[in-house]
């Protein structure tokens, strides 16, 4: 953790394939936002979006890092992964479209609802991806 007078910064590593640990980072982020007395509605939307995105990294990528920045105006969460990437982002954003393995489905995910749900909860969502390299998601939440 590091912070100056205006922003706080946190980082978490995410391990691809490790479902036991999936959600650990989102849980830590939730604790921090609660300590900062962020509005409960904003916390819920933030952590639901972050958790879906974290599960996506665990489900599809080899590894990833979550960078969190909290300022007086907003929360920005960047999930940067090394993995197969998304060949067609528009297709991936469609509800019901999924490339998840049966293992992921056994965990209660992989129904093609993750990315659409992230978009619904985030105030702003940006996705960039390169096939065979990785994907970056940037989720922004505004306090006002």
């Amino acid at each position, binding site marked *: 953790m590091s912070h100056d007078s205006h922003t706080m910064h946190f980082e978490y590593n995410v391990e691809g394939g490790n*479902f*036991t640990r999936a*959600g650990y980072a*989102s849980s830590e982020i939730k604790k921090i936002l609660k300590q900062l007395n962020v509005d409960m509605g904003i916390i*819920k939307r933030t952590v639901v979006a972050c958790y879906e995105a974290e599960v996506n990294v665990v489900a599809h990528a080899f590894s990833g890092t979550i960078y969190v920045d909290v300022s007086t105006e907003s929360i920005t969460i960047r999930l940067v992964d090394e993995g197969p990437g998304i060949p067609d982002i528009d297709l991936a954003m469609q509800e019901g479209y999924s490339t998840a393995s049966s293992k992921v489905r056994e965990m*209660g995910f992989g129904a093609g609802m993750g990315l659409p749900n992230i978009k619904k909860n985030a105030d702003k969502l940006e996705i960039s991806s390169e096939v065979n390299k990785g994907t970056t998601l940037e989720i922004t939440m505004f306090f006002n």
Partner: protein
Amino acid sequence: MLASAGRAPETGRDLIRKNRMKVADIVKLLDGKLICGMDRLDYTIEVAFASDLMSDVLTLKNDHVLLITGLNNMQTIRTAEMSDIHCVILARNKKASVEMLELARDNELIIIECRYSVFKTCGLLFEAGVKPIF
């Protein structure tokens, strides 16, 4: 009105007050076992949702949700944590693992194990007057 002493309520209708049901009464109705959240018997739920698909649970906006599921893994607990769901029923004899219980305890979750199927669990709760979300 309270059910007469010593006799189990026949439909569970006696257990609901103003569309809310206490954890203690849910356990009684389902003949369940409270395995986490022993000190939260008075917590009340307002609506119920049954799913094994956690992405679906993560779309819910309501408060005081009771989750009925047959999915017993860490993501069940994590999903409850992220969705601010305080009470989870593991149906059809699904048992919470030690890791799940530890995480549930950290998050002050209420976990009820129940031998009935998801269908019967939902049926009994619905019959008792617990409201669905959709």
